[in-house]
């Protein structure tokens, strides 16, 4: 309820103007609320994430932000005032700020923040959504969850300790998830005597760290120290961002909402000032119009609307569009909404389009601008955060959800795992819970996508394990992998041939550019892996494997076999 101040101010004005005149006061109060609603209407929205543990004073910082900006209700303050055992030991002014934000019973009992908690507050300028995430290593996945929708990330540093592993993890995850605005709040400045020297040392370390994090998020290994505020902005596609460092004391309130009198050497913004002034709504996307179709709305024969949330760009009535994957073109006949047709709509509005021509478009298709179409591929390279307790298995079937489309997918290769401490690439065969790395993914139908760095909404995906229905990973597409053409020409198969014909069949297939592997191993896992790689597997002997891809070539000529592989 930050709006409290506005209201108070307005009441005050009203009182001055209408001394003793009750009726006039009521009229003016109504006028004031109209003005208030008008101002409220104009507010934009900033989503930010925080990460850290109780030790960093993260909950205290958020509590302080809410309390000092008057976003805490009186009954909530009463509920946490004078609590005998405080999880943080913060006893200042009798209010345990951390308890304003620590939600679940289990968390309160253990004194830690386990899951992502969302908080809402507003000031006269802006509305804010905080995704408050835990900082511990075992909760990297929650950190990624919070970061996925954030425009800005606050990384909390304990001034006494400097940069810890957890700060590194958060900086890296934030850059990986494409957050452009990174704020480092160097907290507990009161405990280092508000020392500028301590702060400058940490600030310099932070610039180096964030520079390396952005480099690593783009797939690079190292990256040297970065000077100035702008990092990795050149050379698209790639993540770039801005780092702002602020010395604060959440416990004492220095530079959170109110300017500190204890650090005259700091002339930058307070945390809240920065949050209020960071540009938002300035789209980070560099791509043209994209509408992933969620649903076809067809109440009767006269109306066929393609409904979805615009994932990038702008569309106007009359614009030419291309529907993918069909490639068919048409023009926008109308942009339909409940509130009437629009002449123009932009990301991220949810709308429905009708087209001038009857086109067969269904859920999972994407309607795009003819100029600047998305990439397409059946194999992609992507950064992933592994969520699940069950490790990644290469060649196991997963479901990949990309926008409204869900396709069967296999991770064919783990390219590397990022060491969270050093950000270096480690060669590993698999990824486990809370691991971050890069993988190659093959899908059964082409994906139409943009690189995540170019457009978050068309460059992201999740992986679901169809056996458990668990969401096992979040992925950020870097690029499509070329050289896929031959895979669409022949389908992968297990071909059983008599031993004496194996050489001839192999030569015939190779002659037709079919990738062939000969093996005597009949382990299902190995065969699955080969099929997933898109090759034709020649097995000498009788057809013994019950598999949809199995072809018994005993009775087939080479030509007939090639025909079947092409079908």
């Amino acid at each position, binding site marked *: 309820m930050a709006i409290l101040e506005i209201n108070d101010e307005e009441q005050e004005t009203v009182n001055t103007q209408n001394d003793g005149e009750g009726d006039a006061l009521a009229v003016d109060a109504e006028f004031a*609320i109209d003005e208030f609603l008008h101002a409220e209407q104009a507010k934009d929205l900033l989503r930010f994430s925080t990460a850290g543990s109780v030790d960093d004073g993260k909950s205290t910082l958020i509590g302080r932000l809410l309390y000092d900006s008057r976003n805490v209700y009186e009954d*909530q303050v009463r509920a946490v005032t004078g609590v005998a055992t405080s999880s943080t030991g913060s006893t200042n002014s009798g209010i345990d700020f951390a308890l304003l934000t620590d939600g679940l019973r289990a968390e309160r009992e253990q004194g830690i923040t386990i899951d992502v908690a969302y*908080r809402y507050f507003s000031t006269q300028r802006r509305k804010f959504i905080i995704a408050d995430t835990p900082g511990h290593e075992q909760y990297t996945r929650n950190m990624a969850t919070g970061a996925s929708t954030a425009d800005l990330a606050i990384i909390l540093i304990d001034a006494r300790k400097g940069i810890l592993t957890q700060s590194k993890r958060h900086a890296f995850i934030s850059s990986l998830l494409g957050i452009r605005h990174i704020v480092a709040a160097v907290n507990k400045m009161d405990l280092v005597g508000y020392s500028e020297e301590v702060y400058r040392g940490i600030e310099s370390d932070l610039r180096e760290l964030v520079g390396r994090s952005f480099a690593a998020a783009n797939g690079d290994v190292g990256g040297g120290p970065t000077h100035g505020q702008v990092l990795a902005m050149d050379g698209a596609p790639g993540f770039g961002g801005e780092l702002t460092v602020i010395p604060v004391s959440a416990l004492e309130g220095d530079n959170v909402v109110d300017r500190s009198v204890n650090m005259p050497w700091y002339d930058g913004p307070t945390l*809240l000032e920065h949050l*209020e002034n960071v540009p938002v709504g300035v789209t980070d996307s560099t791509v043209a119009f994209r509408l992933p179709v*969620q649903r076809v709305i067809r109440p009767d024969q006269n109306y066929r609307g393609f409904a979805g949330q615009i994932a990038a760009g702008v569309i106007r009535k009359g614009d030419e569009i291309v529907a993918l994957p069909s490639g068919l073109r048409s023009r926008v006949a109308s942009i339909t909404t*409940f509130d009437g047709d629009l002449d123009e709509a932009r990301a991220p509005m*949810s709308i429905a389009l009708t087209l001038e021509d009857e086109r067969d478009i269904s859920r999972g298709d994407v309607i795009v601008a003819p100029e600047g179409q998305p990439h397409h591929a059946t194999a992609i390279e992507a950064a992933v955060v592994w969520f699940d307790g069950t490790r990644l298995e290469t060649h196991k079937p997963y479901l990949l959800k990309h926008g409204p489309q869900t396709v069967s997918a296999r991770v064919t290769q783990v390219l590397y795992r990022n060491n969270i401490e050093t950000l270096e690439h480690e060669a590993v065969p698999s990824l486990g819970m809370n691991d971050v790395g890069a993988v190659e993914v093959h899908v059964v139908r082409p994906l139409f996508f943009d690189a995540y760095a170019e457009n978050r909404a068309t460059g992201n995906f999740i992986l679901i394990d169809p056996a458990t229905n668990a969401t096992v990973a979040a992925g950020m597409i870097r690029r499509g992998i070329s050289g896929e053409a031959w895979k669409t020409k022949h389908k992968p198969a297990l071909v059983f041939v008599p031993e004496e014909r194996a050489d001839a069949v192999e030569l015939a297939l190779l002659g037709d550019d079919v990738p062939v592997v000969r093996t005597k191993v009949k382990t299902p896992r190995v065969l699955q892996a080969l099929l997933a790689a898109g090759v034709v597997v020649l097995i000498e002997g009788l057809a013994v494997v019950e598999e949809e891809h199995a072809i018994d070539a005993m009775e087939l000529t080479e030509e007939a076999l090639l025909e079947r592989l092409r079908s």
Partner: protein
Amino acid sequence: MSVSTVEDQAAVNTVDASLGQQNTSSATSARLSHLQLLEAESIQIFREVAAEFQKPVMLYSIGKDSSVMLRLAQKAFYPGPIPFPLLHVDTGYKFHEMIEFRDNLTRELGLDLKVWRNEQALLDGANPVALGTQRCCGLLKTTALLDGLRAHGYDAAFGGARRDEEKSRAKERIFSFRDKAGQWDPKNQRPEVWNLYNARISPGESIRVFPLSNWTELDVWHYIYTENIPIVPLYFAKERRMIVRGDSLIPVEQSFVKSLPGEEQWVRSRLRSLGCSPCTGAIRSDADTIPKIIAELVGFRSSERANRVIDHDTDGSMEIKKREGYF
């Protein structure tokens, strides 16, 4: 802290910051307001659910959040009809004005309304005075809800809960997985990234969907105002018969809520949130228009659920209810 100081400093800071941000003004004109952003997000959620589930349903509680949810559903499928029914879990103790409003609205809009009551418990005389609020809610709300969902075989149920309402709700996913018993495990929630919702479930399991997760109470009122959404008249102040007990105003509606001599009075009052008449406290108020309600709200210094008698039973009572299957 003085507001004007922050404002002045922020203004200074804007000047500083603008040096590096020359090119933001053109993009600013194309910016969506927070309500437009919230609306777009909610509509996307409705469309995902309608596409991915076999048999979704919208839990309709008749309150202001349900009214907003209903409008968003209309928008999501316009010009088509809402492709799922509404389910009202009727405890039998709702205000009569709520039931009238529900029946009129669903008739006017041609909505498919299902009503579910725990008739057996009501026959056995379940009420909050006889059983206590926790047991009464357990039978008439939670059990009725789970039975209603099971009886119709719904695999997804929209609810109007918002994360800003209560601390355990702050951690709820937008797609909130429920096991075969309809229960919520806060320690084992599915990760939820971007707007990619995992709708896959096994038979008997279900998903509760909260399209208003990111709306605040003020957003809801503001939207009702700008969209001119009809709401139950109980939200508007008028002279009402109340049992005045300490700071509480208990509406006179059910005969089993007994008053002491002198407690029953006419009070100019309204309800801030709608529930069962014996357990929903009213507030003294003059707010008889939506702008006045908003004016009152922004001056409010206690959170919305503080006048819900039911939440005071034990610390963390909402989390316990949610684990058991309540919304």
